[in-house]
């Protein structure tokens, strides 16, 4: 367990800002305590400082998780955001996509969002912007990348992909092993 290096921080924040923009600041300056990002076994954990200090007691090989896991660094030093981060990026999301109840299940099973399943989309979403996917009753289902701008979506045919799937809450049961 250690703090992130400058390079890692840069890569990580770059990724995070694709979804929540400048709201990263809100994650770090919280009124209810100091929170920090820690790297452990290539995973980035977002955790309150006191908890982090206590977790220091636990040997590296025995520590499995602490606080919330945001994602991991791949072998090629890219950052992959995990579904477990959804709780923290959903409230600060800048661009959102809502899917219809009929397409809800499809997305949760790991498919892209089609135009036919698109319920709503934030205005002026640029192409390849990170988006949070919601159900129509505002339940965050996962996140992805906008395949088309909002303008293009209006004219797209029903089977066209609107948002690429990146991660969804179905992973909690589909790939429980790989969460951390």
């Amino acid at each position, binding site marked *: 367990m*250690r*703090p992130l*290096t*400058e390079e890692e921080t840069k890569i990580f924040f770059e990724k995070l800002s694709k979804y929540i923009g400048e709201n990263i600041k809100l994650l770090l300056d919280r009124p209810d305590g100091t929170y920090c990002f820690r790297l452990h076994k290539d995973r980035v954990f*977002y*955790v*309150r400082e*006191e*908890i982090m200090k*206590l*977790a*220091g*007691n*636990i*040997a*590296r090989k*025995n*520590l*499995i*998780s*602490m*606080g*919330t*896991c945001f994602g991991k660094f791949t072998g090629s030093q890219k950052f992959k955001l995990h*579904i*477990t981060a959804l*709780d923290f990026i959903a409230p600060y999301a800048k661009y959102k996509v809502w899917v219809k109840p009929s397409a*809800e*299940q499809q997305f*949760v099973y790991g498919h892209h969002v089609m135009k036919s399943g698109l319920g709503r989309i934030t205005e002026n979403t640029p192409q390849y912007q990170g988006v949070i996917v919601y*159900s129509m009753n505002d*339940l*965050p*289902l996962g996140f992805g990348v906008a395949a088309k701008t909002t303008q293009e979506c209006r004219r797209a045919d029903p089977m066209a992909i609107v948002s690429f799937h990146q991660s969804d*809450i*179905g992973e*909690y*049961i589909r790939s*429980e*092993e790989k*969460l*951390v």
Partner: protein
Amino acid sequence: MKKEEQKAKQTAKVKDKGQNDLKMKNQNASKNQKGKSKNVQGVKRKKEEVEEEEEDNSDESEDESDMEEDDSDVSDSGEVTGYTDHNKDWLKPAKSGEADSDNDDSEDDIPDDFSDDELSDDDSDEDDENSDDDDEDLLPVEKKAKKLEKKQARDKKLAEKELMTNITQTEKYTLPSGQEVEQETNQPPDITLVQNRIKEVMGVLADFKEKRTEGRSRQEYIGQLRKDLCTYYSYNDFLMEKLMQIFPLEIHEFLEANEVQRPVTIRTNTLKTRRRDLAQALINRGVNLDPIGKWSKVGLVVYDSQVPLGATPEYLAGHYMLQGGSSFLPVMALAPQENERILDMASAPGGKTTYIAALMKNTGTIFANDANKDRAKAIVGNIHRMGITNTVISNYDGRIYPTIMKGFDRVLLDAPCSGTGVIAKDVEVKINKDEKDIQRCSHLQRELILAAIDSCDAKSSTGAYIVYSTCSILVEENEAVINYALKKRNVKLVPTGLDFGREGFVKFEKHRFHQNMKLTKRFYPHTHNLDGFFVAKLKKFSNKVPVDPDKQGTTENVTEQQETAVVNQSSEDKGQSSEEISQKSPETKTMKKKQTNVKKDKQGKSKWMSTKGNKKQFKPGQFKKFKNTSKGKK
């Protein structure tokens, strides 16, 4: 209009008396034409024809029996229009069709079944009729109806009497002889026979003095019962013996309850939603549910569901947790407060941990530990799904946890156990547990509970509580373990705060436990419709480990291990056997053990020191150096 009909029918009834079947039919036909609902009457006519055919078989010449039949016919037609006085108070003319058809059946039965009896009964009936004639107002139909009622009552009495005589006949139940038993062992068991015998033997045992066969002891009966229960419910002999000790009276109910699954229960995640909202959302998905009971504000019982409950979007979003009702109990007993430091020693798959976190509203710190790394992954999934942020998940053997960390405000130990309380969930338990398994569990539990107590801080301002729970109902894994802890550490039993459940055993067979053992709680499938469960709450009042018992403690640990090898010895005799067995070799062993403990401590400390040192080094610039070392280690 109705009155006219009534009159017409009355006259018809009078005429009917003594007339033969054919005429009656005609008259009925004419009645039917009068009747309002033709369909119903058509059906009735058919029935009447059947009746009459049967009547022909029994006795045609008997006027009385004809009248009997007649009677029912008339009352039938009366029902359709609903006018005889006697029938008024229970007939509703509007629903004549339904009531009629029901009644037909019952009235069909009576003459059919007792057609022979009627012949003999009729004479006395006439006498009754004569006596009834005093009140002249009664219509002939009413008299008939009264007669019928009386006859029914008499028949009922007779049937009861017959039943009673049946009982007295079989009152003396004799056990099968040795030869019969031998014969049975060679053949595949006859389940109905076994079932009957279970019933009989239990009947005998309930009133042993009266019902026993002379010369057969209670032991023989109990032995037979155990054997039969083993065959009928397919348990092994060892477990059945244990269960019969725990439930001398309600063994049957318990075993039956184990054949039925407990209802599916879910727990609302109060961090993300409220129970009412969750219930509404699930009802919209076609789930039929109800609150679990007065004792929990977060539990819901699911009766049936059109969707898989473990895969609804609500589940994936962490709004609820699939969790047995009994799993709520230890957490409720623990009663975690906000901003505390809590240890869950054997936490996988995280159901109780997430409940603790929800009660603490994500404040404080929870250490969730599990000895099994794969199962610990399930904790990770559940904790993240439920949006819990205050938890550290570790993978240690719980027994060494005090060497890692101490000073917890509360500790929950949901110990690994034989699972005898959850036989409904895992039927394997019925056959694959023997004395050795129980002893092994019991021993591990003793070690774990001491570790749990040691991790707890007696000086905690808010708590210093330890909750011990198992999903086993065996005394060896519950009361005996608590009793052991009471002897070994400065802890005392306190009320669990659960207002239902049975009290723990203070004395059981040969065991005599601490007086306060009644503060522990037991839950059974047949009484609470929860999984079999045991919950005990301890308060630690001093961090000091009692000196004298501590010395014994280390020797006992070793002797216990030896004892597990000696299968025949029961687990509670340690006090005596330890002194007998503990001679030269155990002492040397303990010395070694102590040494290793010291070593471990040193290692732990040095590790801790080094990590702390490392932490200080962690400045972004020096990162590469560290990374190299860590990779080298891998």
